Structures are given as structure tokens and as C-alpha cells.
């Protein structure tokens, strides 16, 4: 089962290494990890997705809590969360296929960032699944490069 952990940490050097190191040490595989500053410049938020059964996720959150720079951990409930990922996809496309690729991008509300004689670079924002879907549709054209940010997520509502 995939969990999305939202982790508030002090914005200090070395914190990312401590968090990532802890996962490695305890044998947890990080699927994605995105870090950015929050509304408070002294605090950063890490969004970490991990594959884990119920029991180990409890152990990993407890271990994370032991890090002095970790302030708060929330195991986000997918029902009450909006999550997004950003991807940049470079796909092969010449004059003959350009229209078709652009149409695909449009259907996914993706944007064309760059055009060259032989490629198109597409920016897409959305859920993990949406990005996967576009990726699969573009695959027959020949995807040369993909850059994905990893998931960021926030709880719905006023909180």
C-alpha cells in the first residue's frame, strides 16, 4: 500500500540527509520525495511516498519522529487529500506527427514548453496516474527524456 507522508521539518542544513538516511537504514524504499519551503521560512515540508504495510509505516513514522529536526508527521488520508506531480516530457515529433502529439497534450491540459524540428517538450501537472497515462500514450512516438518532481500533497478543507 502506498502512503503519502507529509513531514514538517526545521529548515536547516542536513535535515534532508537525516530523513533520507533514516529510510535507507530501516530498509524502506522511498518512492518519491519532494521538499520545499512553507509559509514559515524556518520550516520546510517534505512530501514522502512510501510503499508499506500498516505495521511498518507506524514504525517508520515513529522513527522519523525521533529526529530532532522533525516537527510533525501526517500520514495523509487519500480521500481527504489533493496531490499533484509535475512532469516534463521530451517526446520525438516531427512535422508529420506534431499535430497529433499536440492534440494529446491538449486533451491532458498539458503545455508545450519547447519545440524543435524533431522533438516536443511537454509540461504536465496532475496526479501520478494522469501523468502515467499521458506517458503511455506518448510512448509509441518515442519518449527521450522524462523528469518528474515526485508527489506533493495537501489536505483538503480549512486546515
Amino acid at each position, binding site marked *: 500500500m502506498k502512503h503519502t507522508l507529509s513531514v514538517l*521539518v*526545521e529548515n536547516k*542544513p*542536513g535535515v534532508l*540527509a*537525516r530523513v533520507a*538516511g533514516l529510510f535507507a*537504514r530501516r530498509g524502506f524504499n522511498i518512492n518519491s520525495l519532494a521538499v520545499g519551503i512553507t509559509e514559515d521560512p524556518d520550516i520546510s515540508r517534505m512530501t514522502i511516498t512510501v510503499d508499506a504495510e500498516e*505495521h511498518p509505516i*507506524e*514504525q517508520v513514522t*515513529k*522513527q522519523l*519522529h*525521533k*529526529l*530532532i*529536526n*522533525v*516537527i*510533525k508527521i501526517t500520514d495523509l488520508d487519500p480521500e481527504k487529500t489533493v496531490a499533484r506531480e509535475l512532469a516534463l516530457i521530451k517526446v520525438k515529433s516531427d512535422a508529420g506527427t506534431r499535430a497529433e502529439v499536440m492534440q494529446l497534450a491538449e486533451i491532458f491540459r498539458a503545455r508545450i514548453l519547447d519545440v524543435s524540428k524533431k522533438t516536443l517538450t511537454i509540461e504536465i501537472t496532475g496526479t501520478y496516474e494522469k501523468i502515467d497515462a499521458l506517458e503511455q500514450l506518448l510512448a509509441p512516438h518515442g519518449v527521450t527524456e522524462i523528469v518528474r518532481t515526485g508527489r506533493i500533497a495537501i489536505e483538503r478543507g480549512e486546515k
Partner: protein
Amino acid sequence: MKGSEAIIESLKAAGVDVVFGLPGGMVIPLYDALFDSDLKHYLVRHEQGAAHMADGYARATGKVGVCIATSGPGATNLVTGIANAYMDSTPMVAITGQARSDLIGTDAFQEADITGITEPIVKHSYLIKKTEDIPRVFREAFYIASTGRPGPVLIDIPSDIQLADIDYKPAGKPDLPGYKPTLKGHKKQIRAAAKAIAAAERPVLYAGGGIITAGAEKELMAIAKLMKIPVTTTLMGLGGFPENNDLSLGMLGMHGTGYANYAVTHCDLLIGVGARFDDRVTGKLATFARQAKKIHIDMDPAEISKNVAIDIPIVGDARDVLAGIHAELKTMKREPKKTALWLEQVITWKKKHPLHYKDEKGAIMPQYVIEEINRITRSDAILCTDVGQHQMWSALFYSHIKPRHWVSSGGLGTMGFGFPAAIGAKVGRPDKVVIDVAGDGSFQMNIQELATAVCYDIPVIVCILNNGFLGMVRQWQELFWNKRYSETVISCQPDFAAVAEAYGALGMTITGKKDVGDAIRTAIKSKRPAVLDFHVKAEENVFPMVPAGKSIDEMIGGHKS
């Protein structure tokens, strides 16, 4: 003042009066400030010794141990000592010098990323980048090291930061939004625990090092007495419950007593306090205390249900939680005879499976040496050990009756720990007889600290149980590897007594049983650092023993024949 002087002021503000260390290029400013200070510095011969001394000092006194090393190799030599302190939750602050700030990251001379290297084995660490951060960082470091579940904290300080000027002001209260240890146990859980205890017919208390950290011995005793519950302790918990008490089961686990292991296997309620259900205690998890409801009291929430599923978890300080449970129990209706049958059963096990060994004519039995130490010191010495057979004999054949009198490497199992730790313990408790029981293998891992002991006139007594083997590994090879003693025979040994004399300590070689007691008495009377080399029976084993992966009631050698 200079940054280095601010370090001294910060140490004093933390109540430090003793530090262990060895200078080097990147801590010259700090040592220069030490030169004028009234802090007592003990110069070691190897930085690993400094870390273990700080550790032993902390365990014997309950204070934070402090060690200092220069950058690079000095810092990396601390690593084993830091890992050891981490595994056994010892409060320690390790101060390391670092290459000049502008050189960091250039592979400068004696540069090592020590905060990176130690990251998995510290409770927290700092690389100080601004001189004005010194007071705050030291304040936080001592606070983190000594509160909650204690542990080592490392402070890495570039040499230029030690030299820069600072307008020193003592730091205020630490502001650590992510660090708030839970001290008070949850009231509802405390009540639930008390109810379970009152309802139990075959309860066992299982106490670990947390009992000693929290100073919860009286509270533990109060509950045991009130409810007539037998108590077993882990290796780290030795001294947390007096072994001369009828309710004591001694140690449990791989080399635990038969009666402790049977009691845990057959109990209907297991109350773990400040213990972490380590694999050396539980043996095969599937069969560990399988009929029992389990209560776990621990300071560290991450320990609860980590290895064993817990029915009633209570996070908090052991002393506070046990006092709460005791108060609840006193208000409850109790049937004092409820555990009578159980206690009878325990007594039967004690009679049937006592600790024992076969005395052999013409040989000094290692267990006998420990018993003699116990008799002569009236169970009142601070006993330190390395790791191996001698450690287990010390755990089993000495009567542990007081907290902070047992200094042994538990979690990491560090050979070479005992002797420097004993020096640290004696520095902290000069009023006590401090004895290090060592193996002939392990003693040579930090033998150079004889110079430290002699130089500062620290009268620690080393009792080597010399069997010419790396004994515990040899025992495994004998029992499980067809007696193929691959590289465990250490036939090429120095004359330990002569080595001791060469360093200026008292050295004695003891080959006859009748001389054992006299040697120990002479060493104590001499008030000098001493090395007693006891030539014990070579192929003696530690029993009982639970083979790895077996249930703890499947002991070998647990029956007196």
C-alpha cells in the same frame, strides 16, 4: 572572548567538570582555552578510549560524559565509542574539531565528514558554522543528550570558529519544536496496566536499562513487593532490582537463568519496563511469552510494538509511570495470595535449575573468580566488562544489587569497552572499588589506556579471565561449528603482568585457585592501577545458553547434572 573560551563557558554552564580527550591540529584553540580553565581533562592514548571513558563516567554517575577529539582520524576514532553509547542510550556529548570553514568540502588535511559518518549512531549532531551559535548549540546538545531516551550528541567545530571573537552570553532555554519527550504516562493506560496486574495470576516484571536511567528502582521494588511479582532484568538492567531479593530471577535471555526464561515463557502477564525486547532477550519471537498479555513502559515510543506486539503501551518516564501504577494498585482490592502458586512454581524452577558450574581440580574456574570478586567487594564494586564469555560470567555469577554499579557494553557488544569505561567510572566515583573484568582478547583492544590510568593514578583493577581464546566465538564454534576453532586461538599472548609493570601499574599472574582471593585483596589494598592475569580453564563455556533462533526455554546446559 574567543569561540574556544565560549566552549569552556558552555561546558561549565552544563555542569561539566571532567572531559576526556586527545588534542590535534583542529582543536588547538580549544585546548589552549582548556589550559587556563579549571575543567579537569584526562589525556587518553587513543580517542576510542576517550569515548568509552565518557560513557563509563556517564553510566556510573548519571551525568553527561564528554569527550574531545581533533578532526579526521581523531574524530573517526570516536565512532565505535559513539555507536556503543547510542545502542545503550548513554548520555554523551562528543566534541570534534573540523577543518577551517573555508576548506570544508575540499578534502583538506584531516578533513572527514564526521557529522555524516556518525549520522546513524547519534541522537543528534551539529556542525557549528557561526561562532555566535556556540552557547545555543552546547545548551541544546546537553539537553538532548540527557533527556528523553538519552544518547550521544556530536558537535563538530571548525578551527576558525573556535578562534573567532564572540560576545558570550549564556544560552536560554532550548527551543526545539520537534523535540518534546513524553514524561508523564497516559492516565487511562496506567489504570489499564494496574488492572491487568491485579488480575494476573502469573505475572513477571521484565526491567531494562531504562529502570536505571530513570532512577526507578524503588518504584519497581514497590510494585514487585506489593503484588508479589518476580522480577527479571536484562543485561542493561542489572542492578535495577537487587538480586539478593527473593523475587529476583536474575537475567533473562540467551544467557539468562533457567528460572527467568521459564518464568517468562509461562507467565500470563509480562510487564516490560525500559527494555526493548531485544533479540538477545526474546530468542525466537513467535514463542516469546506466548501466553502473556504484554505491558510495555518506555520513554521511546518507537520501541513499543517494534519487535513484539504490545497490549498496553505506556510512553513515559519509568519512574513516573511505575509510581502511577503503584498508586492505582494501592487503591484496588487485592488478593495477596493470587500469585502464591506462581511463586511456588518459580521457587521450584530455581531449585531445579540453579546457576552452576563444575569445579575442576587444578584449574581456576572463571566463574569462581567472579564469585571471589563478589565476596571480597561484598557486591559493592562497580563492575565493568568488555564483551564475551567473561561478560556473561560477570552478569551471572556476581550479585548485582545496586544501580549504576554495572557498566557493560550491551547493544553494540564492543570488545575493548570495559577498561576505558572503568577508568571513566572511577573518575566519576572515586569512592568506589572499580573492577574491570576482561578477556585476554578484548583487553588488548584498548590496553594502551594503562598509561592513562597510571599517569592520573586511577586505581582501576583489571581482572583478565585468560583462557587463550576469543572465548565466546570459540564456544559457538565448539557447539555449532564442529569444534573448528578458526582464528579464535590466541596462543601468542604477552605477559600481561609484565606489560602492566612496564606501564607502571601493578601486575600479577595467578595460576592457582588458592591465590585468586589474595590477588584481588592485594590489588584493592595497593590503591594502584592493577592487572590481574587469571589463567582460567581454557575450554569452559557459558551456560545456560539458548542457541540463536530458538525459544528461550530451549536452553542447553541449563540443568544441573
